[in-house]
C-alpha cells in the first residue's frame, strides 16, 4: 500500500506544481510583476521524478504490490528490462512522457530566466505547464500506474516477449518521446506570440534551436525504432506503414517543413504566420499520434490499448487545434510579413516547394492511416491501406525532394540565376552521369536504383560544395574549427545523412532476395552468393528463457538464429533472427522449421523432412546498414545544428 500512496502523492505534487505555476504566471502577467513560475515548474519536475523513482524501485525489486509491476515484470526479469518496464505499458509510458515534459518545461524556463518578465515567456510557461498538467491528469484518473495489487502474488506476468529481447528498448522510446515532448516548446511559444502579437522579435528564431533538438531526437528515435523492428520482428523489413509508425512520422514531416521555412524567416523575415501554423500543426499531430497509439481505434502491433483514454486524447487534440486556429484567425492577418517571395526558383521559392512536399505528404499519410476507419463507417466493409499505396506516393515525392536537395543549397536568395546555378552544379552533374554509366556497365540496371544513385550524387554534391564553402570561409577567418558552428554545416551534414539513408532504403528494397533453404547438420550451400552452413543445435535454458539455437555460419561468421520461449506470460514463443551485417550487405537468417520429431521449443515442425534438418529463411539485403549509418549522420548533423551560430554572430 505504501508504494501506491507514495506514487500517487508524487503525482499529485506534480499536478499541483503545474497548476500552481499556471496560477502564479497568470497573476504575474496581470499584475505586471516578475513571476516565480520556474520554481513551480521545478516542483512539478520533482514530483514526477519521485513518482518515476517509486515505480522504478518497485520494478527493480520485483515488488508485485503494484498491479503494474505484476503485469509487466517477473522475478527473473533482468535489470535492464526491469528498468525499461517503466515504459513497456501504457500507464508507465505516460510517466516517461510527463517526466520529459516537466524536465523540458523547467529547462526552458531556466534558460530564459533573464527574460522572465517578457509576456511571451510568460504565456509559453502557461501553455507548457497546461500540457504537463493534462498528461498528469490522465494518470491521476483513467491511467493510474499505481493501482494496488492486494493479492499476495508470488510471480508476475513479465514483460511482453518482444520488449525484453533487445536492448534497443532502452533508447527508442525515450528518444521518441523526447522528440514528441520537445515540439511542445515551439508550440507554446507560437501560442504566446499569437496571444501577445509579438512575432517580430527574436522569439521565432529562438524556436529553431528547440525544434532542431526535438527533430533530431525524433529522427534518431524513428531510425532506432526501425532498427529494432528489423532486428526482432523476423521479416527482414524495417518499416511497415503501420498506424503507430505513421503516427510518429506525421509530426516529423511537418517539423522538417518548419525547420526549413524558419531559415527563410531568419534570413528574410518571411513566412511568419505560416511558421506559427506549422509549429501548432506539429504539436497537434503529436497529440493525434498519441491518440492513435493509445486509443485502440486502429489495429497495430505497436499499440498500447485502452478504451478510456481515446476520447480524452482526441478531446485534447480538438482543444489544441481549436485554440491554435482561433488565435491564427484572430491575429494572423495582422502579423503577416509585408514582402513576398521574389522568384519561384530563388532559394525562398524552393523552400516553399519543400514545404508543399512535406506538408502534402503528411496529409496523404494521415488520410491513408485513417482511411480504413472512414471506409468502414461509410461502406461497412474492411479495407487495408498498406505499403503498396504509401510507397507509390513516397517514391515520386522522394525523387522531387532529392532534386530540391541538389539545387536549393546552391541557389541564391531573392533571385534565380541559371548561369550561376549551372556553374555550381556542373561538377556534380557530370559525376552523376559518370556514376550512372559505371552502374550500367557493372550490371546494376534496375531503374529505381539508377535514378536514386543519380539524384544522390547530385544532392551529395550540393551539400559537399556548401560545406567546402563554409570551410574555406572558416580558414580565412583563421580557425578551421569554426566551420563546425557555421550556419549551414549541421544542415548539410544532415542532408548527407539523408542521402546515405535514401540509398540504403532504395538499394535494400530493390535488390532484396528471400529464400528458404533446407540443411541437414553439417551441410552447407550457397544462397544468393552467401555461403551458408548449418552445424547443429544448441539449447539454452536460463531463468529468463528457453531457446533452441541453430549454429549457423554465413561467410565464415557465426550466427545463432533461434526460437525463444520467454518464461512468464504463459511462455510466449518468438523467433529470434540472426543478422550478419557489413557495409555491403546484410544477411538475415531465421529459424523457420525443423524436420521430423523436432523436440525443440516451439519451432514449426515440417513433416517430410528428415529429423535433425532445418529450414532456414535467408534474406540478403544489400546496403541495408547504410540506413543506420545515415541515421547516425543525421543525428550528428542535428547536434551540430543545435549549437550553430546565429547569422548576426556570423556577420560580426
Amino acid at each position, binding site marked *: 500500500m505504501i508504494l501506491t500512496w507514495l506514487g500517487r502523492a508524487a503525482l499529485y505534487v506534480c499536478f499541483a506544481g503545474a497548476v500552481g505555476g499556471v496560477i502564479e504566471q497568470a497573476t504575474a502577467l496581470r499584475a505586471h510583476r516578475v513571476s516565480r513560475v520556474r520554481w513551480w515548474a521545478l516542483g512539478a519536475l520533482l514530483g514526477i521524478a519521485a513518482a518515476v523513482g517509486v515505480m522504478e524501485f518497485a520494478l527493480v525489486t520485483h515488488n*508485485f504490490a503494484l*498491479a503494474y509491476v*505484476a*503485469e509487466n515484470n517477473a522475478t527473473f526479469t533482468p535489470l535492464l528490462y526491469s528498468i525499461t518496464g517503466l515504459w513497456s505499458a501504457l500507464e508507465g509510458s505516460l510517466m516517461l512522457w510527463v517526466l520529459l515534459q516537466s524536465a523540458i518545461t523547467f529547462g526552458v524556463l531556466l534558460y530564459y530566466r533573464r527574460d522572465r518578465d517578457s509576456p511571451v515567456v510568460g504565456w509559453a510557461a502557461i501553455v507548457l505547464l497546461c500540457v504537463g498538467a493534462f498528461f498528469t491528469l490522465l494518470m491521476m484518473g483513467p491511467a493510474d500506474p499505481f*493501482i*494496488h*495489487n*492486494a*493479492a*499476495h*502474488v*508470488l*510471480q*508476475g*506476468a513479465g514483460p511482453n516477449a518482444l520488449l525484453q529481447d533487445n536492448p534497443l528498448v532502452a533508447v527508442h522510446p525515450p528518444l521518441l518521446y523526447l522528440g514528441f515532448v520537445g515540439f511542445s516548446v515551439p508550440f507554446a511559444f507560437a501560442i504566446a506570440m499569437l496571444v501577445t502579437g509579438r512575432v517580430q522579435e527574436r522569439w521565432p528564431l529562438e524556436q529553431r534551436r528547440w525544434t532542431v533538438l526535438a527533430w533530431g531526437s525524433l529522427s534518431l528515435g524513428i531510425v532506432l525504432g526501425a532498427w529494432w523492428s528489423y532486428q526482432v520482428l523476423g521479416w527482414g523489413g524495417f518499416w511497415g506503414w503501420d498506424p503507430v509508425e505513421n503516427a510518429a512520422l506525421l509530426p516529423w514531416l511537418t517539423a522538417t517543413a518548419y525547420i526549413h521555412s524558419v531559415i527563410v524567416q531568419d534570413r528574410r523575415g518571411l513566412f511568419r*504566420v505560416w511558421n506559427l*501554423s506549422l509549429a501548432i500543426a506539429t504539436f*497537434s499531430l503529436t497529440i493525434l499520434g498519441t*491518440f492513435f497509439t493509445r*486509443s*485502440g*481505434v*486502429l*489495429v497495430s502491433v505497436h*499499440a498500447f*490499448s*485502452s*478504451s*478510456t483514454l*481515446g*476520447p480524452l486524447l*482526441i*478531446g485534447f*487534440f*480538438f482543444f489544441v*487545434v*481549436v485554440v491554435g*486556429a*482561433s488565435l*491564427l*484567425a*484572430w491575429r*494572423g*492577418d495582422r502579423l*503577416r510579413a509585408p514582402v513576398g517571395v521574389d522568384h519561384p526558383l530563388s532559394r525562398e521559392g524552393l523552400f516553399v516547394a519543400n514545404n508543399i512536399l512535406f506538408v502534402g505528404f503528411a496529409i496523404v499519410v494521415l488520410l491513408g492511416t*485513417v482511411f480504413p*476507419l*472512414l471506409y468502414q*463507417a461509410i461502406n461497412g466493409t474492411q479495407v487495408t491501406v498498406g505499403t503498396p499505396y504509401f510507397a507509390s506516393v513516397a517514391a515520386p515525392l522522394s525523387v522531387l525532394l532529392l532534386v530540391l536537395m541538389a539545387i536549393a543549397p546552391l541557389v541564391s536568395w531573392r533571385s534565380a540565376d541559371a548561369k550561376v546555378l549551372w556553374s555550381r552544379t556542373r561538377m556534380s552533374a557530370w559525376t552523376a552521369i559518370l556514376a550512372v554509366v559505371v552502374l550500367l556497365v557493372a550490371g546494376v540496371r534496375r531503374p529505381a536504383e539508377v535514378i536514386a544513385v543519380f539524384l544522390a550524387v547530385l544532392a551529395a554534391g550540393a551539400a559537399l560544395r556548401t560545406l567546402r564553402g563554409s570551410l574555406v570561409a572558416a580558414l580565412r577567418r583563421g580557425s578551421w574549427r569554426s566551420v563546425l558552428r557555421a550556419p549551414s554545416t549541421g544542415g548539410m551534414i544532415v542532408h548527407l545523412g539523408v542521402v546515405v539513408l535514401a540509398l540504403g532504403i532504395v538499394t535494400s528494397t530493390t535488390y532484396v532476395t528471400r529464400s528458404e533453404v533446407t540443411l541437414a547438420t553439417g551441410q552447407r550451400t550457397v544462397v544468393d552468393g552467401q555461403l551458408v552452413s548449418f552445424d547443429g543445435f544448441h539449447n539454452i535454458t536460463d531463468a529468463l528463457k528457453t531457446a533452441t539455437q541453430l549454429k549457423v555460419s554465413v561467410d565464415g561468421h557465426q550466427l545463432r538464429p533461434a526460437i525463444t520461449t520467454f518464461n*512468464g*506470460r*504463459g*511462455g*510466449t514463443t518468438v523467433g529470434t533472427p540472426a543478422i550478419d551485417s557489413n557495409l555491403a550487405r546484410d544477411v538475415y537468417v531465421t529459424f523457420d522449421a525443423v524436420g521430423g520429431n523436432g523436440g525443440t521449443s516451439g519451432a514449426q515442425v515440417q513433416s517430410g523432412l528428415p529429423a535433425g534438418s532445418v529450414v532456414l529463411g535467408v534474406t540478403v539485403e544489400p546496403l541495408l546498414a547504410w540506413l543506420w549509418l545515415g541515421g547516425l549522420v543525421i543525428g550528428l548533423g542535428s547536434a551540430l545544428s543545435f549549437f550553430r551560430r546565429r547569422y548576426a554572430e556570423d556577420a560580426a
Partner: protein
Amino acid sequence: MKRSVMVTSLAVMAVVVAFSLFLATRNPVNTTATQADSPLLGERAPLIAGPRLGGGAAIDVKADLGHVVVVNFWASWCGPCQVEAPSLSTFAWQERHDGVDVVGVVFNDRVGAAKDFAAHYGSLYPSVIDSGGVIANRYGVISPPTTFVINARGIVAATLLGAVTTRQLEAVVARVNS
C-alpha cells in the same frame, strides 16, 4: 485576399472538428480478448455451483442477486490465463464494493495444480471446482481463458475469448451496466 489567414484557419478548424468528432466516435478494436457471438448472449445464465477451490463454503452463484458477475474459466496449464491472472485480481479488488463479483471456474485441471496456480498468482476471487466439466459444458467453453459477463438481471451480456485486461473488463462492465 485581405483576410486569407482567417478564412484558411477557420476552414482548417472546421475540417479538424469534423475529423475529431469522427475519431471520437470510433470503437476500439479489442486486441486482447475477442468478443464472441456465443449463443448464450441474451439468455439466462446457466447455474454455477460447486465446491470452492481451497476449501471453505461451497459456491453457488445466484446470478440474479442484483450484481454483475464476471465468470472466468481458467486452468493452470493455460498460458494466457497466467497473463490475465493479475488483471482479474486487480479488477476484482477494485470493484468489490461496486456491485461486481468475479468468480473463477477451474477448467479441466487437477485440483492440486489449480490450487498452486491460485496461490502463485494470488487470486482475489473465489473459484469453483468444476467436476466432470458440467459447468463448462453448460457454458459451451472449449478452451480457457473464456470470460462471461452476466448482468444484474442474470442474463449473459458478453463473452470474451482470450486473456482479458483490467481496462477491457472495466469497459465491458460499463457497457453492460448502461
